[in-house]
């Protein structure tokens, strides 16, 4: 029951962010620099949150209507082979992502692109590496 309330809350927050974003895009047109990006960012994040919330609401209602199908869905979700397949695919895509981001970083660096954008790419790359290192260390201690 708590899950559905959270989903409704998420959908409402999403709609709110979307509305605020659209309002600022329509009314203010002389924003400069990073501030000009904020309304669009608000629309983007609002859409994602709204979509996630609505998805959860639909799923919860469908589960209530057909408990057998909901049970099957839960089994599929928790199935160890499905989880192993998903984890293996994620590991492969992580390796590819690291390779592609480093190639992209090198390419944009030699293209002489805006320093801010270059730093943004470099920070994203660094963040992903640090995130991996943190979890590697955490799991190393756990297992």
């Amino acid at each position, binding site marked *: 029951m708590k899950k559905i309330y959270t989903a409704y809350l998420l959908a409402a927050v999403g709609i709110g962010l979307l509305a605020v974003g659209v309002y600022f895009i329509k009314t203010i047109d002389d924003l400069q620099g990073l501030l000009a990006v904020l309304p669009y960012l608000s629309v983007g994040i609002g859409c994602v949150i709204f979509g996630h919330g609505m998805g959860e609401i639909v799923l919860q209602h469908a589960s209530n209507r057909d408990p057998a199908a909901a049970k099957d869905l839960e*089994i599929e979700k*928790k199935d160890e*082979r*499905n989880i192993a397949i998903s984890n293996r695919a994620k590991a492969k895509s992580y390796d590819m992502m690291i390779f592609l981001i480093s190639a992209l970083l090198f390419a944009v660096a030699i293209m002489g692109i805006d320093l801010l954008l270059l730093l943004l790419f470099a920070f994203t790359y660094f963040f992903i590496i640090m995130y991996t290192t943190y979890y590697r260390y955490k799991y190393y201690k756990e297992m």
Partner: protein
Amino acid sequence: MNNRLEEIRKKHGIKQEELARALEVSRQTIGSLENGRYNPSILLAFKIARYFELNIEEIFIYEEEEKE
């Protein structure tokens, strides 16, 4: 690792779907286990053994790889 899951399941007259539902895994997992394409976790191996009231070694056969 080999296993006798298919043989044991058929001996008990159980369908893959029924076994999957009892063990709370997907039917595809049972199929993959029987074909030897997937090795179960130790937890699932225990669940299978308990379901058939057998020891793990009676269902799953560990064969050491021959070194050349």
